[in-house]
């Protein structure tokens, strides 16, 4: 189900505290577009992605850029600040009540062999897969994408080669934000959301990225699958309210036994 979305997180590879909250903003944007302008989330997600791209670029250029040379801790605190502002401004504007977007595909189902598939989820899944394949192709096959990955791996090296690292970072951060924005809009039709949904979303994305998202499509797929299966199993066998227990426990275990490939990779 949610595997498609998790794919996006996995391919993006770089996550931070603000991503979950950006995703929530994507959901609210989709909600505003749908309730105010009657735009279905399946079209609205493009706008959500665009808006969050700009937000991402602004955060990177206006804030992160200024402290690129500062110690890691400062960047963590900065992102914590951004996350606080994003989450709580959503709380101020939209209030704490859970919302839900009503998409046109609500309640339509189709029969696939023996299974009955919820059409909304199917469309979300397909769109998400298409998006992540595009993203992957961009990151691994295009020149700009390669530069982004080089800069992520070794900012200093890319600087020496003469790439405009700051611009590349800004684009990369913008694309990350756009992706979570789109993801938010796409799940909005079947996932009730509130401003506090940001942290759990971030945690899920950390899990996916740390476990399997080594930048490869299969890695992201594997990570996403594992995490969502674990979380769904947790929800089935434990009280549904304990689903988060599974995510957080998983996070701890994953942190302690990080897959070797990711050891030492910068995550912020």
């Amino acid at each position, binding site marked *: 189900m949610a595997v498609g979305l998790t794919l996006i997180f996995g391919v993006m590879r770089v996550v931070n505290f603000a991503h979950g909250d950006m995703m929530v903003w994507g959901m609210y944007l989709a909600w505003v577009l749908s309730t105010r302008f009657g735009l279905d989330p399946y079209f609205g997600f493009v706008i959500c992605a665009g808006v969050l791209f700009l937000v991402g670029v602004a955060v990177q250029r206006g804030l992160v850029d200024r402290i690129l040379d500062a110690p890691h801790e400062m960047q963590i605190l*900065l992102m914590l*600040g951004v996350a606080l502002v994003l989450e709580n401004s959503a709380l101020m504007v939209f209030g*704490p009540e859970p919302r839900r977007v009503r998409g046109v595909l609500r309640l339509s189902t189709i029969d696939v062999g023996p299974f009955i598939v919820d059409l909304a989820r199917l469309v979300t899944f397909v769109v998400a897969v298409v998006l992540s394949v595009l993203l992957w192709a961009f990151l691994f096959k295009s020149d700009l994408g390669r530069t982004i990955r080089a800069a992520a791996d070794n900012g200093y090296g890319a600087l020496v080669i003469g790439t405009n690292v700051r611009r590349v970072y800004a684009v990369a951060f913008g694309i990350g934000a756009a992706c979570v924005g789109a993801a938010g809009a796409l799940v909005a039709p079947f996932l009730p959301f509130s401003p506090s949904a940001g942290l759990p979303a971030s945690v899920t994305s950390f899990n996916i990225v740390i476990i399997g998202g080594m930048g490869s499509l299969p890695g992201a797929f594997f990570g996403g699958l594992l995490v969502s299966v674990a979380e769904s199993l947790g929800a089935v066998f434990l009280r549904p309210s304990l689903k988060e227990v599974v995510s957080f*426990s998983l996070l701890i275990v994953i*942190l302690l036994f990080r897959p070797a490939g990711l050891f030492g990779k910068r*995550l912020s």
Partner: protein
Amino acid sequence: MTLPRVLLAAALAVLLVLPALPSLFGSYAVTVFTLIFFYGFLGQAWNIIGGYAGQLSAGHAAFVGVGAYAAAVLSQDAGLTPWIGMLVGGLLSAALGAVIGYLGFRFGLRGFYFVLLTVAFAELCRLVASNVDAIGGALGYYITFTGNPRHFQFQDSRAYYYIALGFMLLATGVVALIERRRFGMYLTAIREDESACEALGVDTFRVKLLAMVVSSFLTGMGGTFYAFYLFSLQPSTVFGIPLSVEIVIRPIVGGAGTLLGPIVGSFILSPLAELSRAYFAKGGWIGGHLVVYGLLLILVVLFLPQGAYPWLVKLGGGRFLGGGLRPPSDTSPQDGAGKAGARSGPS
């Protein structure tokens, strides 16, 4: 060089005046000051591991929560006076701190990974507390009012003022003591460069673990105050991220890793929090004061990375070494490059 001394003397003078104030104040001022002291205390406790040792814990609410629930439940259900329950709560929190520290430091989690670990544990505590019905579950745990000092309850709110002041002074005394001992010197050195410390004979694992235990013990003791000042415990508030943010933000704004930073930070932030909370509550905008916190955090990181206290000292013409979260390093990029790994890099 004498200026820090002057400031210190000024701070001491202020502290001498503080006990006399409640008789002059209205009750609102007493409340605000009580919060200044209490959050100053929590910030000071966090300062040991987060400021001096530079291990950013973003889950210190877990220790407040464990300490608060322990003291409250022991008092209500077992009749144990919170004055002793406070120590029990502290010990339980210290045990939790030891577990988190052991895992985090043994498995070499640094920076962002350590932040995540602490958040994950705090959230797990919240979820557990929400799901254990014996301690009230998600609805929370309520304390019956007796007004009996033996139950850590007081008719006169000024009592809380003095207790909070005592807490803050106690933690500051502990930190002052740590600062001038080998332990404290090792902590600041670890914040600067852990591998270099190891090479100089510092058992960084043990030192960090000890810092975590002391910090979580003090924070856990604070839980008793939290419980009996508010008379109710909600898992989502006492274990929640917002409380962890409250704890972290004061020392960072005031100057993490400095003796007076958390107190300066609390004198700035606690009134600000009260004001903005009141202001936003009027407009029905919950979350407003956290937006203010977020903005403040961003501003401090960008413009005042060492925090207010070192800045004040420098403003007065004094010199300040070693405090604050590390500001942008002015060593050459080549030197900085080796910092990330615990191992020596290729030449």
